[in-house]
């Protein structure tokens, strides 16, 4: 059984439908890349998968013991965070909050987990630094460490490289690649398909003519050829 199965999902807000008949499944170890035009509903799909908003129709099924709250999430950055007074450690630790329930403090294990994930993302030396003083790439790695505290299994990433300079972008892709090698399942939204394509195992193309398949199938498909060709021409 798959980790996540999306069945005939309809996405949208109020009366406006963004996408219909979205179906795909994600298995352990997949690296799914979601692409498509701006406004095609990629972020909406992710928010729906996270249970932040109800689907207009269709189902999201969790398998293999995965619970909806055990999904790590890297949101598109909000302006609030930009000037938030918080240390790296405080932020990474807050990734454990979902497991706390009503318990008002973090356990020693949770603190150790936060420390391990900071080490994994290479931000342990920054743990007492203020988040808002870090570079864009460092900030994203802090948020990744936080997401890893919520789960070791599956991460949803909404445009993790937007706003990063080329070097930080390359580093981010390398970090994600190593996480994928360690067995973390990744679902990533990207508008830079050319850069994301080499890493992905599967592609979901949102839009009027939706597509889901492996990377190879995508490269062979009409929609994939058009999209990648255009990237090459640009």
């Amino acid at each position, binding site marked *: 059984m798959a980790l996540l199965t999306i069945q005939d999902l309809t996405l949208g807000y109020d009366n406006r439908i963004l996408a219909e008949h979205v179906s795909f499944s994600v298995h352990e170890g997949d690296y799914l890349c979601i692409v498509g035009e701006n406004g095609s509903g990629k972020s909406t799909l992710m928010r729906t998968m996270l249970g932040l908003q109800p689907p207009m129709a269709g189902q999201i099924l969790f398998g293999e013991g995965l619970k909806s709250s055990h999904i790590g999430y890297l949101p598109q950055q909000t302006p*609030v965070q930009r000037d*938030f*007074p918080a240390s790296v450690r405080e932020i990474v630790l807050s990734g454990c*909050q979902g497991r*706390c329930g009503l318990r008002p403090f973090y356990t020693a294990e949770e603190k150790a987990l936060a420390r391990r994930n900071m080490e994994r993302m290479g931000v342990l030396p920054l743990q007492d630094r*203020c988040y808002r003083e870090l570079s864009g790439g460092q900030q994203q790695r802090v948020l990744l460490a936080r997401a890893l505290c919520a789960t070791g299994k599956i991460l949803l990433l909404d445009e993790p490289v937007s706003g990063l300079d080329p070097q930080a972008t390359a580093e981010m892709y390398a970090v994600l690649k190593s996480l994928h090698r360690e067995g973390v399942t990744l679902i990533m939204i990207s508008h830079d398909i050319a850069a994301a394509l080499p890493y992905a195992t599967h592609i979901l193309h949102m839009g009027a003519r939706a597509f889901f398949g492996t990377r190879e199938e995508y490269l062979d498909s009409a929609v994939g050829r058009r999209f990648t060709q255009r990237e090459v021409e640009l």
Partner: protein
Amino acid sequence: MIQTLLQYLQYPFVRYALIVGVLIALCSSLLGVTLVLKRFSFIGDGLSHVAFGAMTIATVLGISNEMLLVLPITVLSAVLLLSAGQRAAVKGDAAIAMVSVGALAFGYLLMNIFSTSSNLSGDVCSTLFGSTSILTLTVREVVLSIVLSVLVVAAFLLFYHKIFAVTFDETFAQATGTNARLYNLIIAVIIAVIIVLAMNLVGSLLISALVIFPALSAMRVHKTFLSVTICSAVLSVACALAGMLISILGGTPVGSTIVAVDALAFGIFTLIGRIKGGISHA
């Protein structure tokens, strides 16, 4: 000067005022950071006007312990305003503006029609700016204030990490299994209690200043959530004490003196922040 001060301290009402003032200052500073960063400050503003409206109703009805009416109304409004902000029927801040201005007008109207007092504008003024109410607290009000303050501080300590998570990134918290709606609600209720408490000290128009100034000052200098929280609590208490002492000695209005001291502290902290920033950038 010390002599005069000691002499004043012999009066129980002065001691009550100092105790309650310090507690209120402590409570009001705790959620300042959350209020500023969650763009909740306008809710605080709206609620303080609601509290004013409720206060006038209590006065008109002749209820002796006004807090018993003002507190439930303000808490209820906080809950309603928050859920209005989440459903988008009326846009959140428009709803708040409506409620806040409406309550202000309604309150003034009520006072005008029903007030038997000969000094109407004086009454309105003291509800808005809290000119003397802190010095006229009854023992019952003092006890109620102490109980509410203890509850606020306890709730804050209990929910500290959750408040952090929800303030820093509500979406992430919600997605990973934290009940963000519940904690938003708790935050709103705590804010409402703080506002009702603080009305005694500074009056309903100046409450926002009491809540927000210490947090903004602390954020100029400190970089972590914990240190900002502690610093703004200490700063708020210090400013309130200084403000009250100055006003007792100088005969100035309590609320505006405290806010003036808070503003002065903000200026100093901004300066310190600049200097520190300058050094670390060099």
